[in-house]
Each structure stands twice: as C-alpha cells, then as structure tokens.
C-alpha cells in the first residue's frame, strides 16, 4: 500500500496546448476532481517544476490515453563550430548579410516514463519516479484519442509504503447519493447524484522503536509525518500494489483518525479511506 503524502510540485504551467478559460491548468492542483483542467484540444503538456524528491506522480479523473513524462530541456541554437572547435552563434555571409539561426529541434529527449492506456483505467494513472535529488522541470504530455484532454487531479510527491492491507479486513462500501421519488404512474423518478467508495481496512505497521526491518514506513512515521500534519486532507492512495491500480488507486481522505492496537512490535492500524470523486 502506498500513499503520496507530500507535494513536490513547486509550480504548474501549460507548456503546450491551450487551456479552456473556465478550466485553467492550475486546477490540477486544487484537490477537487470536479474542478479539472481542460484543454481545448486532444493534447496538452503540463509543465511542473518538482523539487527533486518526488517518488510518484498520480493523476485522477483524466481521460488521457497516453502520458509521457519528459525531462524538460532548454532550447539552444548553435550555428556551428569554427576551425578552432569553438561554437559560432552568429555570423555574416560573403555579402555582409547576417546569417540566420534555426533551431532544428533535435534536442535529446529524456523520457522518464511512458504510459499508454490498454484497458479501462477509470481515469487513474500512477507513475513511479526515481527521486532526482535536485529540482527539475518535468513536462507531462497528455493526449486523448478523442475529444479534449482533461485532468482532474495531478499530484507528485514522496511516497510512504506499507504492507498490503489485511485482505480479510478489507471492505468496499459504495455510497450512493442519488434520490428517488415515486411518480403518479408508480414508476421511480431517479436523480443520479453519484457514488463514492468508503473503504475500511486493517494494515500492520511497525510500531516499535527504529525502522521496520522489512523496510516499510512505520506507524510513527505515518502518525508524525502524515496524520499529524495533514489529517484528513485528500491524498493519492494505492491500496494494493499487487492488484489492478485502476481500481485500487484512490483519491481519498482518511475518514476518521485510525484506531490502533499494539501487537508485539507491530501496530494493527484500522482506518477507513473515503473516495473523493
């Protein structure tokens, strides 16, 4: 189980494509899947400056069919190399006219990650990253096969990793907010107001001093670095690393503070994640 618990994104801008005026690119950071970023065409490139410690990028409520994360580079234009091996940046021809410079566009592209949708992904894309160590700019090229590309949530940050949830404790309880009334005919008048999952589960975390020998994050780290600073703010969760992330990656919040029971050196943590969509 993973959760992206910090935000490494320093700034967001639109590198390519145009945004719909009502749905600007800054909306990807507002924690509301229903206040999305919408482009006016099939593809757009979201440029993020990330602080260098991001271990994953997660996108929710997006219709992107392919996503590429590219390390952005500056463009430079070089005319050539003279006989001494020095770079020439400008020059004159034999008539004295200035010689123009053209960017031939042959820049090396470092593609950090490439994703193409193969099966239904429920609008969720989870991209693992290796922390770079230094601030860098990433271009996230999003393309939809049809219509206008849209991204509801984009988060990138450090990841806390825990054991898989205890399967026997894991439940998914969809809540339906719809209303229904009876018409004169006896038929139902149904207004669909959507659904969200409420997911209670237990998970074991190391509860004693020091690091978890198995390498996961500990209960104390979860409490002091996640629960205490962030409380019930929505975060990107990956509830199972082994199963299909289209279902198990959830944008949600801790529904109420976890209950814990110490079992040996471990803490049995009982909590509930409520999906926000």
């Amino acid at each position: 189980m993973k959760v992206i618990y910090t935000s490494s994104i320093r700034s967001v801008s639109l590198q390519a494509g145009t945004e719909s005026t009502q749905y600007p690119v800054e909306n990807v950071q507002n924690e509301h899947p229903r206040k999305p970023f919408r482009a006016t065409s099939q593809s757009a490139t979201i440029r993020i400056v990330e602080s260098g410690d991001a271990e994953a990028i997660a996108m929710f409520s997006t219709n992107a069919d392919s996503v590429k994360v590219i390390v952005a580079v500056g463009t430079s234009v070089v005319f050539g190399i003279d006989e001494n091996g020095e770079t020439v940046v400008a020059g004159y021809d034999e008539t004295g006219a200035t010689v123009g410079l053209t960017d031939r566009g042959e820049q090396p592209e470092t593609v950090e990650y490439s994703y193409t949708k193969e099966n239904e992904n429920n609008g969720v894309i989870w991209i693992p990253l290796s922390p770079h160590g230094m601030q860098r700019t990433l271009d996230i090229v999003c393309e939809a096969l049809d219509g206008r590309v849209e991204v509801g949530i984009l988060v990138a940050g450090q990841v806390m990793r825990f054991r898989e949830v205890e399967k026997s404790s894991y439940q998914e309880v969809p809540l339906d907010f719809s209303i229904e009334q009876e018409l004169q005919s006896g038929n139902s008048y149904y207004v669909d107001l959507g659904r969200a999952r409420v997911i209670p589960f237990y998970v074991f975390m190391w509860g004693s001093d020091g690091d978890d020998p198995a390498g996961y994050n500990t209960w104390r780290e979860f409490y002091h670095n996640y629960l205490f600073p962030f409380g019930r703010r929505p975060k990107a969760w990956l509830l199972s690393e082994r199963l299909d992330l289209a279902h198990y990656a959830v944008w949600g919040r801790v529904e109420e503070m976890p209950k814990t029971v110490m079992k040996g050196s471990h803490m049995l943590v009982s909590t509930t994640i409520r999906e926000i969509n």
Partner: protein
Amino acid sequence: MYDYGAITGSVTESFDYGAITGSLSGCEDYGFIVDDIVDYAVWICESLKATDSAAVVPEDEGEGDGLLLAVSSDTEYRNFSVDDQVLSFLWHGVVMEVDPVKLSLPTRHGGFLQVSAGQVRFIPSAFGGVEAWSFSAWPPPKELDATFRCKSTGQQGAAKLFEGKLYRESISEKDVAYDVYIPSYTETIGANISLASWSTPSGTLINFFEKVCDVLGLTLDSSKATADPPALDHNLSNERLLIDLASEVAAFCCHLFWIADGILYLQDMSVSNGSLNLKNPNDFFRSPAYTDEIPVNRVVAGTHKFEGTEYPYGVDYTLSANYTGDDAQLQGIYDLVNSQWAEIPMPAEVGCGGFVPGKEITLLDTRLAVDSVSTITMRSVSYDFTKRKVIIGGHCSMET
C-alpha cells in the same frame, strides 16, 4: 459597440454575447492592440453576467444537475451550485443548503408575484477571497444579485427560473445565509391622491399600471390583461409604497402581475396564458394535493359588498380598500377565493422553466376514486432544489 477594426490572431474560446452594449464600468483601459484582444475576451468571459445563452451549449447536454446560481456583487460575479458542475462554465459547489424557494401571490385573487420563502446558505469560504472561486469581499456583501437556474441531467441547457436579490441574513463560522427576495421598488405615492386622476388619461386599471410602470421605470405588457378595464375610484389617505399599492389594486381587480427583465406583465386571472398537458402519469409525482379554503360568504370592500348564496355559514372576506368605488369586482373575488386549489409536484425536468402565471395544466389523476381531469391555472411555484422537485399550484376545477 466597440469597433476593433480588423482582428487578427485567434481567440481560443469564444462565447457569443451578441452586441455588447451599455457601459463597461470598472474595466481597465485595454487599448486595442491585437494581443490584448484575447485578454479582453477573457475579461468578458469572466466579468459579464452569465446569460441564458451562456448556460446553454450543446455539450452541456447529459451533464449537470440541480441549482445553478449566478451571483453578482457590485464588482464581481460567480457561478455557484450545490455540487461542482463541470459544464461550459464551472459552477462551484459552495451552496451548503437551499430551502425550497417559493413564488406566490399575496392573495388568492391576485397581486404581485413575490418570493414568499427561501434561503440560501453558503459555505463561509465562498467569500473573503479564501479560494480562487470566492468573492473577494469580506464581510460578505449585504446584498447580491442572483439568477436562479435549474439544470437537469440529459436536458440541453438550463432553465432560467427567476432573477432575485439575496439579502444577507447571518454570518457564522459554519455558514453565511442569505434570504431570497424578488427585487422591489422604493418609489412611493403620496397621500390625498385620487387614483382616478393620477391614472391618466382615463383613470382605468390599465392607465393606472401604465403610470406605475412610468414611475418605476418599467415597460408594461398588458396583452393578457382584461380588454375592458374597470375605472378606478379611490383616494389615498396615506403615503404608500407604489409597488404595494399596485399589488392591492391588481388583486382587487382580480389581476396579477410579475416583473421580469424590466417588463411588468399584468394578467387577468380569468385569462389563460398557454397550456401544459400532464396527462402522462410519468410527468408528475404521486398525490397532488387538492384543497379548499374555508368558505367565504361575503366579500366586503368599504361600503360595498357581495353576498353569495351558496355558503351562508361562510365567513366575511374584508378587503382593505375599495379601489373601484363599486361592487363590480367583488363577485370575481368571491369566485376565486371559493375556488378549489391544487398543488402539483413534478420532477424538475418538467417543472423548471414550465411555470408561467396563467398557464393551464390539464392533469389526469387516475389514483382518485374516480378518474378525474383537472384544469389547474398556474399561480404559484415552489422550487425544491434538494429533492429536484417543482410544485406548481393554482386554482383548480375538477371533472370526471
């Protein structure tokens, strides 16, 4: 109109507002440089009040549901709703609760169609610049203009319900509450005025309303008013708010009126204003309510009265003034107050945008002991945005 001359480059997002007229106060000086045109178009998108055409675009079909509330202060406007609605505009879900908003007449025999109940409660961060979509003012403005629309899933566009004023009722940690009003008017009419001479040229009901519209700065639409307007005969003893007087005079003459977009629509209660067929039992909810008020035996106005013969055990219905100086209107009032009344609850798709005073609903109710066809003339409407229900009420006549 602003003449931009040749516009080059491209405007990425265009909304057709028609001719831009009137004054754009509070706007910056853009000059007319081509690069600024896109910014100007963006400013227009953000600053002009959302019109019906702005809430209606083909791509909205199928999405969006419930109340769409376009709210404006003196300097800003925002699109608010109960849940975030991703339409061609983004309507932000900052309305915590909205009570059913009810528009009704002050009497069963006419008057000025007004909001009789309604409150909207916003989350406090809708104001004070807390979020990108908040109003920047704090404290929240004492009054706001609001246009109420209702969108149904699967329907193209949103139905405009009415324009109102929100008057601040309370501020707390948990919410900011506003009461809903139909905008009203502060003009008064003085004491000792004879309505007959004030209502030039001939002192009739229509002349009275022409004069009222003149004073209030409205245009009169009397196409549905009576073709034979009664002559008014009354002297005012005190100074009064003109709109209140107009409401009483209309009610006395069995007329109703409402004001929309600068037009005052005056309507004879006995005239039909279109029809709505609700014979399909999928178009309304179970159990419409059919009620009768306590019977009225006599209608009394000043020294004149009309006494019916049907309900001698009924009460006296006394009007505050007699505006025509005779009893010619009183039988009409008697008939209306003794008339059956029906309230028909219907789904928002059917009812929103369907309320027009005077429109006649033909309803087939097969759940009563005997199948009955009722004709209901629309007089009041209640919008329950939480339950997506509209209740239209009015005088009813039931037949088998």
